[in-house]
């Protein structure tokens, strides 16, 4: 029986081919489809359309060719569509195809994508953390009430110095995941998506800390050479898991305590607000890094020795640098003091001491979760940069 396609007055210049294509889809070569219609160019256009598609034509009848089926010879699904179906290693031949798409064979393989193994990049938490990240986005113009009274100049200077320090740290935290983003196979898209939002988070942090620094003046604080040296060692780490360990687990993990400290002790509401907002984002980054590392260590327990080596290497690289600039340390004390009375300065000092102890405890806790024995966790935490990040 010959299939009949009724086109009415629909011409090939207005999409008639879709109906003919539909009738031919999946049919073996030689299948005949009769095309009927009243468009005045039907005969002329049917003939040229069919020729281009590799079909034969006899009058109003199209005889299916085999080109369409041959085009999909060797095509394969790029894994399953759902996050639970990611494959152990994503081939470069899938290119940037959507996960689960039917991929036509051929085309250039993905270039420069060296992070293509589930064990290297994946964490089952990625979809959930990405969804949380999206739901937690905030607009600095709306989320922060930027109107606030001027602080005492000396205290304001301390706040500006801390903000200056935060900006250089956030700029580093932006660059590190950004460098890995383009190296991860898009098959592991939730990881790529999460890191993309992480980069956007850091961009926003750079903005709000800069804006707070300039809220009442035109000049920023100082940038110490030791601090910058410490941050540049983070950017030099070429392996995703090691970079994630140094940046997220140790660095941003330490920053959770710092931002919480600023949220509680900053003398002005804007600093407290921006610290609170950044803290929520950083907590997500730490959770992702921690989950990624826990997955990696579960797959490959020997990774722990490389994490330890990375920490020691960074410590050695920074041994001859000053670490945290004294201006930053002092600014933290003044900021937490909120004034210049002896009583206030003493209180600020005590708070910064307590902060450093909390930072150390937090690092040790996260290291223990990665399977390091408590004594080793304590030793490694002690090797962490004095610059906090």
């Amino acid at each position: 029986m010959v299939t009949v396609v009724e086109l009415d007055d629909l011409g090939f210049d207005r999409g008639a081919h879709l109906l003919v294509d539909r009738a031919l889809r999946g049919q073996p070569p030689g299948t005949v489809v009769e095309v009927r219609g009243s468009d005045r160019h039907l005969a002329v256009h049917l003939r040229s359309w069919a020729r281009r598609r590799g079909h034969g034509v006899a009058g109003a009848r199209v005889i299916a060719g085999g080109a369409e089926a041959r085009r999909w010879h060797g095509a394969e699904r790029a894994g399953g569509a759902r996050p639970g179906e990611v494959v152990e290693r994503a081939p470069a031949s899938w290119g940037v195809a959507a996960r689960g798409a039917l991929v036509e064979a051929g085309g250039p393989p993905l270039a420069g994508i060296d992070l293509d193994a589930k064990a290297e990049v994946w964490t089952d938490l990625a979809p959930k953390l990405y969804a949380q990240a999206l739901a937690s986005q905030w607009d600095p113009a709306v989320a922060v009430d930027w109107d606030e009274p001027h602080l005492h100049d000396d205290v304001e200077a301390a706040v500006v110095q801390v903000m200056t320090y935060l900006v250089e740290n956030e700029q580093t935290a932006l660059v590190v995941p950004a460098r890995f983003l383009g190296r991860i196979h898009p098959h592991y898209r939730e990881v790529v998506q999460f890191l993309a939002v992480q980069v956007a988070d850091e961009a926003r942090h750079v903005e709000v800390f800069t804006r707070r620094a300039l809220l009442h003046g035109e000049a920023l604080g100082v940038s110490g050479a030791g601090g910058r040296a410490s941050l540049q060692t983070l950017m030099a780490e070429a392996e995703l898991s090691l970079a994630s360990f140094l940046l997220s687990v140790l660095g941003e993990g330490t920053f959770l305590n710092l931002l919480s400290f600023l949220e509680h002790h900053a003398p002005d509401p804007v600093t407290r607000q921006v610290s609170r907002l950044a803290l929520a984002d950083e907590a997500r980054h730490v959770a992702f890094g921690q989950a990624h590392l826990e997955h990696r260590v579960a797959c490959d327990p020997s990774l722990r020795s490389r994490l330890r080596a990375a920490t020691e290497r960074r410590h050695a690289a920074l041994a001859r640098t000053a670490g945290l600039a004294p201006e930053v340390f002092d600014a933290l004390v003044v900021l937490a003091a909120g004034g210049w009375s002896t009583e206030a300065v003493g209180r600020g000092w005590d708070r910064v001491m307590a902060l450093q102890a909390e930072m150390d405890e937090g690092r040790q806790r996260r290291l223990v979760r990665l399977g390091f024995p408590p004594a080793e966790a304590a030793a490694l935490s002690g090797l962490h940069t004095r610059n906090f990040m």
Partner: protein
Amino acid sequence: MLPGEGGPLTLGAVAYDPKVVTIWDGFRRWFAARDFAFDFVLYSNYERQVEDLLAGRIHVAWNSPLAWVRARRLGEAAGRPVRAVAMRDTDCDLTSVVVVRAESPVAEVGQLRGATVAVGAVDSPQATLLPLAHLGDAGLVAGADFKVRRFDVGVGLHGDHIGGEREAARALAGGEVDAACMIDGNHLLFSTEGTLAPGATRVLTQTPPYDHCNMTVSAEADPAAVEAFTGLLRSMDYADPEVRPLLDLEGLKEWWPGRLEGYRPLEAAVDRLGFYDASGRVTAAEYEP
């Protein structure tokens, strides 16, 4: 390297578009992977390519239908007949159409008497020679019974450059001419891309089917090399992801054996319009490739 001297089989192709380099460079690599020594030379126009084919500078020419007609005439005149060994599936049974605006009072070909008809370049088989000869068959002599407005884009490319046809279509849409000539596939293309509004034109007449390009080989080319070349072309499979993009660029799904009966209409048109003489000499007026 001359034929029979053991060098690569050398093909000439006309560079009517930058994609020609991609296509033949890709085919060259594909042939090399199959241990077939092959190279190509690009020409700026078909006349030079055909002359070089007959002079033995190349073994194979990827010829337009008009270039085939000239190569055949030159070869026979010289006693060294050329052969058409392969063509694309899309080269067979094409037609050209003469189109008027939908609301035109011209209802039949005879009513074009005194009208202005737009055509493509002087050397376009599909947009000039074949449709003008077709109108001649209907009793209308170009230049005498109707005016011809020619759009000489890419002269020497034998109509491979679509520009002349598109300009002719634009002239029709703009009301500058009464009718325009084009290949059937371009009428569909122009109607979908917007050069012609859908439904705004009407096909007044359609030529009988004719064939388009072919692989023309010289009499001197090594028969074994030609056979190997033809066999490899025929074996190019649209299912092969390496060669498929090249086939797509070249506009075919598979290579077919060459056939000659489809060139009769163009041979007749060339004679009627005096484009070449019987020995393949260029006799067309105002033709400077």
